């Protein structure tokens, strides 16, 4: 049953964390107002007020009350709008979904960032480590179409960004992270997930994502000198 009351989302078009909140809202057909933050240097006073601890997007505001941290927001969305449930019913399956969401955020993403921010031998080492984490993420699929089985669930929505983020890093750095030969299941899942209509229509333009992240990399490398 859809709850009335205004929903706002403070986001940034290039943020995968904001994107997964958008995916959840769209999957449940929850209407919301989207406020684009001018990151990184021009954070709105609203963002600073709503997320004083981290000062980051995404922030969901419902009935005037803010919620920060995208995985926390996903849980809130699932509890508040019961249609098209993201988390499975069974507690053991719910724990599994939460486990993989955590794994992607805590292991896969930092490993890919390490590839992104390194060069030469250090980068080669980082690539091996990142591929390890991705191979482990693949094991969570257990050979199924999605983490949710035949259809997507919380874990797919939470981890789906890993698929396109890996491609961004691959393109900008010229490395290979998810390859069809050694990670056939993960490779197929990431493509399958991004082809889902609701997911596909929310994706920012590829060339803009490449441009944005190339820009970040330049800034980062310049800051080291």
């Amino acid at each position, binding site marked *: 049953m859809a709850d009335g009351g205004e929903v706002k989302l403070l986001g940034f078009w290039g943020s995968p964390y904001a994107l997964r909140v958008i995916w959840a809202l769209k999957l449940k057909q929850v209407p919301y107002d989207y406020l684009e933050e001018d990151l990184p240097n021009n954070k709105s006073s609203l963002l600073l007020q709503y997320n*004083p601890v981290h000062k980051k997007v995404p922030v969901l505001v419902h009935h005037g009350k803010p*919620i920060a941290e995208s995985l926390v927001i996903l849980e809130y969305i699932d*509890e508040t709008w019961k249609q098209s449930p993201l988390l499975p019913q069974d507690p053991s399956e719910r*724990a599994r979904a939460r*486990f993989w969401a955590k794994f992607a955020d805590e292991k896969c993403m930092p490993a890919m960032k390490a590839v992104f921010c390194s060069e030469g031998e250090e980068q080669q080492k980082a690539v091996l480590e990142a591929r390890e984490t991705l191979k482990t993420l693949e094991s969570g699929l257990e050979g199924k179409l999605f983490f949710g089985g035949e259809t997507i669930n919380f874990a797919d929505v939470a981890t789906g960004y890993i698929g396109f983020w890996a491609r961004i890093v691959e393109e900008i750095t010229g490395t290979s992270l998810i390859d069809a030969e050694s990670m056939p299941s993960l490779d197929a899942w990431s493509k399958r997930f991004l082809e889902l209509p609701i997911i596909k229509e929310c994706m920012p333009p590829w060339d803009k994502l490449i441009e944005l992240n190339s820009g970040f990399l330049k800034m980062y490398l310049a800051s080291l000198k």
Partner: protein
Amino acid sequence: MDGVKLHGFWLSPFSHRVVWALKLKGIPFDYIEEDLPNKSALLLQYNPVHKKIPVLVHGSRPVCESMVIIEYLEETWPQCPLLPTDPHERAVVRFWVKFIEEKSPNVWIVYRSVGEEQEKAMRESVEMLSNLEEHGPNKGKKFFGGDGINIMDIAFGGVACWIGAIEEVSGRQIFDAAKFPRLNAWKANFKSSPVIAENLPDREKLREHLARLREKRLSSSTHK
């Protein structure tokens, strides 16, 4: 109902969080002490991804990651709730649990490092405490959960009850009671709360063990 087993380690705050949750909810369980670093075959089977404790096994199903385990306990045994019922309040609590999970490793970096690495970890640890002191929920109440302990109390308890020993062993003061009066009061309430008080590692044994591990680590590693 299927039996519950917990694979844990006496020294581990993550292990203790799960013990506290089980005891607060009155869930009977068998505790299996893992002889770390000598991990049992069962542990490796139940947690192939991280190969770490704690692992809860309910019937034959393993659940890993301390805060994921506690959410599982909450959903399976609803008595003595550890989360509020209101979705927004639940989101606030989960926000803080994530915050604590993300920032508290710095306290352990203070413990096991020296020099610039330790200084950075000190700054991050103190900032974590400042944020909790200033922004943490339920000001003026006994616990973050209000009158009763909730998962945020449990999450932070896994930090606060180990900081004293870490400070002694590393010689660094992270938790200045004068700077963090609210957290200090919380700590006294939490540590003296019956279930918690009965389920903490022996302070002297903890200090000795941490001191030994630290010395071993620092003498074998190279420093820049």
